[in-house]
Structure formats: C-alpha cells, structure tokens
C-alpha cells in the first residue's frame, strides 16, 4: 500500500539549518510547505536538558546524536585505482539524524567566508596569473559575491544570535575584530564570549608577533537574546558539552532553538519525521521534478508531489540523492564531463599541539568554538607570489576540549599510554595541553569526486555513495606553510613540548583524530552548466524546480567552518524563489 499525500507548493528534504531556514521563509510567504526528515523530533526541553546533556560517554563517545553508519554510510578510497570500502564505524563524518540535523550537535563556529573565497579563480588570475594554479585544480567562481550575500549573512546571524566583534563595518576597520573580513553592515547581534586563559596567552603573543588576533564568531551566544523570529535564547554557560551535544540552555544556535519553534507555528507547514526520501521523481520529459517518494519507519511508502523540490539534507546525502534520482549528468573523471559528484572539497588541517610546563588551563571551561584567531594567513590576505599554492588557513587557539574520555589519549609522543605512567602523564597533559589549529582552505581536483558505489548497498538495496579523495598538491603546500606558522606561534607562546602536523602530508582518511567533518561540493553552484550543477541561486540547471541547498553547493572550501555561509545561501535562495520564481517559474539564469 502506498500513501499519496495532497500536493504541496514546496517539499523540503531534510530539516537541518538549510531546510528549516528556507521552510520558515517560504511558509511565512504563504506557501504550503511539507518537510520530510529522516530523523526524529528533537527539542531542548525533552531531549537534551542539562540532566541528560552532560554525558560524554553517551553523546561524544557513543555518538548517539549522529547518523549511525548502520543507517547510511559511504565508501572511501584515495584514488580511482583502489577498491573502495565502506566506512563501517564512527568516523570524522558527523551527520545528524534528527530534526535540526547536524545543526543540533555542531560546534557553532559562525563564520562568514572571505570575499576571495567566492571568486578564487578570477581573483587569483588577476593577482598572480593562471600559473599559480597547480595542474588539475578545479578552481571556479561561485556566481555570487560576498557583497551580494552580505544582507543574507546579516539576517542569518540575527536569526542565530551570533556572538562576535566586527572588524570591518561599512568599509571602515574597527578595532578588536578581524581586519581582513568582508565589510559588514553592522555589529554582531551579541558581543564576544569571555576568552579562555589559553585564548589570552595566544592573543598576547600573536599581537607581539605583529598579527591581528580577534574572537572567533560563535553561535554559543554571550547574552540573552530574542531573534527576529521571536525566539528567545539564553546566555552560554561555557559548560563544555557542545560539539556532539544538543544544548540544554537554549544558548547554542541551532535549528531546534532558533527556527523550528517559529516554523512549527505556521499553519501552512507540515513535517514528516522518521521518514526518508528515497528519490526525487521527474516529469515525463525529465526537465522538472514532480515531487518525492519516501518510506517511513514502519516501512510504509508514500509520495509527496510538489511544485518545488528543495534538497536540503547533509552535503553527502544531497549528492547521493541527486545521483540516485538521475538529475544532472554524473561527473566522469575520465572525460571530465558531468557535474553531479564534481568539485569535492574538504578542509586542510594543520596543527601545533603544545604542552606547557606548569599551567592551569582548566580545559573543561569551554564552548565548541571558544577561540581567538588570526587571519593573517587565510584566503588571499598575504602575498602568495612564489609559494606555489592559493588559499591558507585561519589559525586559532581553540579551547573546545575538556571531556576526559576524549582527552585520555592526548599525550606527548612517547608518553606511557597505560599503567602508572599514563596516570601521571594524563594528569599533567590535561591541564597543560593546548592546540593551535590551522583550519585551511580546500580546492577541488579533477581526479577527486563522488559516484555511486558498484559493490556496497544501503538497507534498501540502493548503492552507497563512493568518495574518491586524497589531498592535492595545493593542499599539501598550503598545509605545510600553515603547519610552520602554527609551530612558530607554539614556540613563541612557550610550549615546552611541541608537535606539529600537516594532515595533507599523509593520505586522507576519515578516521584521523581532530580532523575536520567539513565535506563540501558535489552539486556546486556556478556560472557555467558544464562545470556547475546549480546556477547562482542554487537552482538546478537540469531541472528548474529543483533547488539544492547546503555545503554541497560550495565549489571550494574556505579556511572557515561552513554553517553561516550555508544559512546565508539558504536565505538568498528563499528570496529568489519568493520574489522571482513563484511569479515566473523557470530558470532564474539563462544557461
């Protein structure tokens, strides 16, 4: 038996940040919106109050808040000549499986990208010439600029309640913020968090070194706040149960805290939970979508037809759903043709880990992103002449780790990992370990891509998605450059023992400790249908009533966390749908 639901104006696949943001905008504009979410309903009071939240084993170790590999996973390999194997156990891929998506358990680092990040091709060619790009690198402009997105960044930050200090307002540099950032129309909604002791040490030394430290913008908000949707948030308590946890204080920006309470009150909105979209259905001529087919947790299948289909699951799931649905031409690394699965980018991490001799860092006082950063080596903020790469990294003193199971293995190389010696080493490390993280840019390469795996299947017998990825020469060079900067700062702050790493010097693996969870691209926006799946409004070139939202739209990744850019793009697309597409359904940009 199959359920056929009444037609909606819009069906939204996935209710994370993108899905909830665009659903709220469209429902408020009067459209009948149905969202379909694979995970269960989750709200602060019922599911993660302080009596439930403060449990490292349950949430951070056993990862109950994530999408289990059992439910859906991916196969990985480093190059096309390898047999891809499934990621069977918990890895660095941290997809959500609940209303709120990954936006429930994220660390809440709330960045805008640098203006360069949207136009890496034209700005690189203009400043250095094409020879700055290593062979095979797929660098292309997004089709939307920072200046165009600024009002949408601003609105997302208001909805999320973001804490921070502006560095540039209306083109004027203001002290205390990031002098390299794109110009803002106004100050942050709430002021910065109180920095940690480690943050203070980093600020002092990087200032002495001539850099420009500033507080990392945070979705763990610093004071009580009411957002434009009328939702109230409370001040962050620095409890340290942040990344991999829901927030019991209504302090961490999340769809659950900031958007869903308003969304659920729109009479024209409906939500199907614990229901998975199997594929997007196409019209007879294949040029538009007619809706989606789904299955609920009882195994009941159904169809939801709609005039507009918005794909707003996690980046990996978006790419897979497009491949499974046959919308857009899959990318072939052999012919270099096709767009679905093209332009995968990751995040190039470098670190300096350092141990002080006798500090009291009290690492349990933290948030997911309590950090001071310098952007002196990010984006195109420094001269890359002769360096052989583009991009760089935000370099930050991150105070986000104080939970003991996770810290038990954080020891200097050669220290005992068990026995009496471990107890002593752990006791010292816990109060004396600090990290300097270089969160680096990542650019796509023509040999790295997604496609459907020929061997491994999901619980319904459908192919898993296959990731073919390893670091490219640009990543290796930028990562090494950033590793040296991190190490230099670690020496300056007085680390007694220092270990530094360029992750791109090794092969990619989803299992490396402290690696990023930021996967990007695969269904990217752009200006040319031959190299992008979407136009500048995240509208599918191949089917004008399909919009694909999320980091899957990013042609490259910046030296920042992705969420606020994802949110700004969702608002940008919502406005285009409301003001242009509804009145005249069709391509918003002519191919």
């Amino acid at each position, binding site marked *: 038996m199959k359920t056929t639901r009444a037609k909606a104006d819009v069906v939204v696949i996935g209710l994370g940040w993108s899905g909830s943001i665009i659903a709220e905008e469209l429902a408020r504009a009067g459209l009948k919106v149905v969202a379909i979410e694979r995970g*269960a*309903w989750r709200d602060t*009071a*019922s*599911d993660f*109050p*302080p009596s439930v*939240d*403060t*449990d*490292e*084993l*349950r949430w951070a*170790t*056993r990862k*109950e808040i994530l999408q289990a590999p*059992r*439910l859906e*996973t991916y196969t*990985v*390999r480093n190059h096309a000549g390898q047999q891809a194997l499934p*990621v*069977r*156990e918990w890895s660095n891929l941290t997809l959500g499986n609940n209303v709120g998506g990954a936006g429930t358990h994220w660390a809440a680092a709330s960045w805008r990208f640098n203006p360069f990040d949207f136009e890496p091709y034209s700005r690189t060619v203009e400043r250095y010439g094409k020879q700055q790009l290593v062979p095979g690198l797929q660098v292309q402009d997004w089709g939307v600029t920072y200046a165009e997105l600024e009002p949408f960044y601003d609105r997302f930050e208001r909805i999320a309640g973001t804490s921070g200090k502006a560095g540039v307002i209306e083109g004027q540099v203001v002290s205390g913020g990031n002098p390299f950032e794109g110009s803002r129309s106004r100050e942050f909604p709430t002021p910065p968090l*109180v920095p940690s*002791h480690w943050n203070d040490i980093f600020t002092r030394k990087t200032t002495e070194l001539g850099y420009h430290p500033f507080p990392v913008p945070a979705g763990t908000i610093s004071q009580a706040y009411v957002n434009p949707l009328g939702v109230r948030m409370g001040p962050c*308590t*620095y*409890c340290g149960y942040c990344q991999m946890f829901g927030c*019991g*204080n209504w302090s961490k920006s999340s769809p659950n805290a900031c958007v869903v309470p308003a969304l*659920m*009150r729109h*009479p024209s909105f409906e939500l*199907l*939970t*614990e229901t998975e979209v199997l594929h997007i259905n196409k019209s007879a001529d294949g040029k538009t979508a007619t809706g989606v087919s789904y299955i*609920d947790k009882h195994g009941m299948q159904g169809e939801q037809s709609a005039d507009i289909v918005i794909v707003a699951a996690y980046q990996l799931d978006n790419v897979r759903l497009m491949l499974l649905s046959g919308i857009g031409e899959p990318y072939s690394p052999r012919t270099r043709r096709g767009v679905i699965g093209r332009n995968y980018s990751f995040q190039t991490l470098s670190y300096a880990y350092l141990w002080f001799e006798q*500090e009291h*860092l*009290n690492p*349990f*006082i933290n948030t997911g992103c309590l950090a001071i950063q310098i952007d002196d080596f990010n984006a195109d903020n420094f001269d890359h002449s002769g360096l052989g790469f583009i991009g760089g990294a935000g370099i930050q003193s991150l105070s986000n780790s104080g939970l*003991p*199971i996770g*810290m038990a293995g954080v020891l200097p190389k050669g220290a005992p990992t*068990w*026995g*009496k010696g471990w*107890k*002593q080493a*752990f*006791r010292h490390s*816990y109060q004396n370990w600090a990290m300097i993280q270089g969160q680096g840019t990542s650019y796509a390469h023509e040999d790295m891509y997604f496609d459907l795996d020929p061997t*491994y*299947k999901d*619980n319904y*017998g459908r192919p898993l998605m296959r990731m073919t990825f390893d670091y490219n020469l640009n990543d290796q060079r930028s990562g090494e450059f950033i590793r040296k900067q991190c190490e230099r700062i670690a020496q300056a702050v007085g680390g007694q023992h220092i270990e530094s790493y360029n992750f791109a010097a090794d092969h990619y*693996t*989803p299992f490396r400790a402290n690696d990023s969870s930021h996967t990007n691209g695969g269904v990217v926006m752009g200006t040319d249908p031959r190299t992008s799946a979407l136009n500048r409004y995240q509208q599918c070139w191949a089917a004008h009533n399909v919009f694909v939202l999320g980091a899957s739209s990013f042609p490259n990744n910046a030296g920042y966390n992705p969420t606020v850019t994802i949110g700004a793009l969702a608002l940008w697309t919502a406005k285009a749908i409301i003001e242009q597409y509804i009145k005249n359904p069709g391509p918003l940009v002519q191919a």
Partner: protein
Amino acid sequence: MNRREALISLVQLSALGAIGSASAGVLASDRPLAIGTHADALPQPPKPGALAYLTAAEAREVTAIFDRLIPEDELGMSASQAGCVVFLDRQLAGPYGQAASTYRLGPYLQGTPEQGPQFRLTPAQRYREGLEQLGQYCQQQHARPFSGLTGEQQDALLRTMEAGAAPLDADFFALLLQNVREGYLADPMYGGNRDMVGWRLIGFPGARYDYRPYLHRKGLPLDLEPVSLLDRAG
C-alpha cells in the same frame, strides 16, 4: 539483504535508540507535541548482580588486564576497583557490544589503513575471541592464564600485544585500552569511575553545567568538587 531483513534492521535500530521513537509521523501547528523529558532519555545505572555478558572466567581475565592498564597507586584505585569490569560487561551486553551503530553488510575485504576498521565481529564477539586467543597464548608460553602471571610478565605481554607482535592482536589491545578508559572516565552512572576517581585524577568537575562564576579566575587551580548524573538521578 532482502526487504524483510532491511525492515528488521530498522526495527532493531529503533529499539536500540538509534532512531527515536517519540512523535513519529506528521507534525503541524494544530497537533501539539508532548512536553517534558522522556523517561527513556535518561540513562539508567547498571543493575547490581550477575554478569550480563562476560563469563566469570572472562571477567577474571579482564580484571587482570584492566588492573595493569590502570593500576592502583597513590593517585587512585585500579580499574576494577573503580567498577570498570562491570562497566564493560554492561556495555558489551548493550547496543555498543552488539555493534548497533556499525555498517555490517558485506563483502568484508582487507583495505588500506586509511579505510578504517572492517571488523566482521561485534565488540562483544571480539572480546570472546580475543580473550580466548590470549588465554591460549598464555597457556602455551607460561602454562597459566593471564591472571596467573606476575605483574612483570603481564606488562611484558601487554607491551608485545600493543606492538602487534603475532599471534597477539594490537586491535584487541586498542579495544581494551579504549574501554578501560571509558569505564574509568565515563559518568559513574554507567557503573565505573567509582567515587569519580577518574575525574579526581585530572581535576575534571564532571556533569556541571555552568562555569560562568569561574570565567575570570584564569590560570588558577579551581578545585571544584565533581558532580555525577547519579547525584541528579536520586
């Protein structure tokens, strides 16, 4: 996997908590949701009494191993004194031991280190097999079980195992080390970390939820008495 198995696996996931059971279906503004913390959202301390998964002999060997990994000394009690064997037993009997979150469809192939674990066995099965192999090795080498060796012999054997020298299994060593640390450092709610000994070792204040009073006491020892979820459960 056929359709029926697929559905069964989903039902199992649901039973194991990987899919929530609350409020499935259609939610909308005219259908109010239940309010309040679900009873099943709260973890339950292990019931005292018999072992739930390990045999008595296995528990004895695990005790011997765990107490070399985390021994009793002036910094605190040993792993088994802190309840880590009970912790492990209950974990192995539960979703973790049954690999509830793990992708378990074949084929199982040997991959590169970068491709990560490809274990065919569940953690519970790995303990059964790993302890059996370790016992056989100890019998062959020393004519005694691991628990019958001297402390020095035990440490030497564990070091060999950690290094992955055949026939001992470095993966099993890593599992033992991970689990004993979990038991020693997880909330006492789960049966280990008795008297919050693991937290006292490093000065971690536990299940506290508000550090605003201490934000400006930077770089100072805070000596905060730790708090457990057990304190709240009563």
